[in-house]
């Protein structure tokens, strides 16, 4: 018995895997291909439309960064095996809370921001806690919160101010120490220098003549990149990352070897809420106002970006870099179609097709990994 069971050579029935096939079963593959195709496409059809000058680049970078922020949270949560459909409502709710605290209640803006973050983290934890405790699908629990939070986001400003948009945050944030972390810009000196040396466009006339058209990198983009780097390192390089994969791959098997699955899932719900709150704060600081309809459909856009980025809807597999590329594709296409002069409603058609292709590709990749047929 013992001698039959110790083969010294590798199994002759397993074919050597080609490097191409190996590259194919990386979760980021779809995202990388998609990014290349999208950039090639717009380089061909919109290269003279201003899409690739400094202003155009900033335009689609900001939109992509917005998607990226929520995609990182959605990605880690999806890999941990759960969904959050309340992201969009959370964005609206968080923005409205900041506006109510700082404008209506005249709190200092830093306090409004911090309290809102605490509130969002608590709501994320509540989402997670209900999912864990009841064993209900997160789809249903967070769908409930989609409506609950949106309802409050409309109710509060209407009751307090008799309108659904609260403005004046910009004035309130004047001189605040925390507000620039979300609404400020960095490297303004560098961009001024680039403008002075004719490397990027500057305003020709008007009050801002001589200033560069793009005067710095918004903190929104900085947040997006920081969250992507953080998420990627957390997922691939730490013990906790292994727990995220394990919790989404098979929660029961993970529990048997001592992975604290419940804690991992609740923390990921909180992280998703944190990302939504970052998005909301940046948006409120940029616009100077909060609206009750902010963040509509963002939960689906985040999930689409994550799926384009190669994550499996069933959990246990995916990549933050992939999700970030998904968000980039999303932003470039949305803004690019505008630059290319295509009817903007076609964006949704394109999105649907892209989603479908991504899911089909992912299913195929999963079969290759697990050897199912």
């Amino acid at each position, binding site marked *: 018995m013992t001698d039959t069971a110790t083969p010294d050579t590798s199994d002759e029935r397993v074919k050597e895997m080609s490097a191409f096939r190996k590259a194919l079963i990386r979760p980021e593959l779809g995202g990388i291909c998609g990014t290349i195709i999208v950039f090639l496409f717009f380089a061909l059809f919109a290269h003279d439309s201003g899409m690739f000058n400094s202003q155009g680049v900033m335009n689609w970078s900001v939109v992509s960064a917005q998607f990226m922020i929520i995609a990182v949270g959605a990605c880690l949560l999806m890999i941990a095996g759960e969904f959050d459909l309340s992201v969009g409502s959370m964005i609206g709710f968080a923005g409205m809370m900041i506006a109510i605290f700082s404008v209506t209640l005249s709190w200092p803006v830093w306090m409004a921001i911090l309290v809102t973050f605490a509130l969002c983290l608590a709501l994320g934890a509540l989402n997670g806690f209900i999912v864990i405790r009841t064993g209900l699908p997160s789809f249903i629990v967070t769908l409930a919160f989609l409506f609950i939070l949106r309802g409050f986001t409309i109710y509060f400003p209407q009751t307090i101010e008799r309108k659904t948009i609260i403005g004046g945050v910009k004035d309130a944030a004047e001189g605040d120490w925390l507000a620039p972390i979300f609404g400020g810009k960095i490297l303004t000196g560098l961009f001024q220098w680039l403008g002075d040396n004719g490397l990027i466009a500057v305003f020709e006339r008007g009050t801002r003549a001589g200033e560069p058209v793009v005067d710095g990198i918004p903190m929104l983009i900085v947040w997006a990149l920081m969250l992507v780097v953080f998420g990627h390192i957390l997922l691939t*390089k730490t013990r906790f990352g292994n727990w995220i994969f394990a919790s989404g*791959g098979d929660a029961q098997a993970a529990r048997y*070897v001592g992975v604290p699955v419940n804690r991992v899932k609740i923390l990921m719900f909180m992280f998703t809420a944190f990302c939504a709150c970052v998005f909301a704060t940046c948006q409120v600081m940029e616009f100077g106002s909060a609206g009750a309809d902010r963040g509509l459909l963002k939960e689906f856009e985040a999930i689409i970006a994550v799926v384009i980025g190669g994550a499996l809807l069933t959990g246990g*597999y995916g990549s933050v870099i992939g999700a970030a590329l998904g968000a980039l594709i999303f932003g470039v296409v949305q803004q690019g179609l505008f630059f290319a002069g295509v009817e903007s409603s076609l964006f949704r058609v394109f999105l649907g097709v892209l989603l479908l292709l991504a899911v089909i590709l992912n299913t195929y990749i999963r079969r290759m990994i*697990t050897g199912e047929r």
Partner: protein
Amino acid sequence: MADPIIRMVDIEKHFGRVIALAGVTLEIFPGECHCLLGDNGAGKSTFIKTMSGVHKPTHGEIFFEGQPLHFDDPRDAITAGIATVYQDLAMIPLMSVSRNFFMGNEPLKRIAGFPFFDHARANTVTMEEMRKMGINLRGPDQAVGTLSGGERQTVAIARAVYFGAKVLILDEPTSALGVRQTSNVLATIDRVRKKGIAVVFITHNVRHALAVGDRFTVLNRGKTMGTAMQGEITPEELQDLMAGGQEMAELEGSLGGTV
């Protein structure tokens, strides 16, 4: 004869009005493969779950290395050195072998004060341990999903042994496997036993039990039907004990002795 590593005395477990275990006594010795046989519903699963800390016994005592023992949850049992490998919940198919191997016990290295997953070490150890078990991986990043059922069981067993299990409980490791994979797993059990680890092998297949077992205990309707040593008992006797004797003998007659 060495002292038993685990002694379970008169274990009873009731679930509401159902008596799943009605006084089971069992001794498990290091370096031996103790086969626990029984038909479906005999109480095998309840019994090993009591041993691995999932259930608390309603009555009776457990001695581990001579000391009375109370597990609050499975984590305590794992820490004490009692590892359980469940049939279909051993591994996560989408994750790599090395990530699976160290799941819950990830090796860490510090970079700038922050603890990071030490992938290099995890990969080296995984390849080494797999080679010892006779599995040649394409690489440590190969997904577990590409392994056969028997190989997955073997990885799970290797993992338990590597992390210092003194008692290894295998819950029906061969019931879903083909002939060749079964013999691989049985060979692994043999290898583990020779390291001085106590193996508790749960099965309802008499042939598999007799192939590697040193000691056989048959459970039926929550009670032990007795323990026998290798060589003291024939497959037919074991089969009869499992099924509770009479009606099985009749059935076997009509099936021509093929069961």
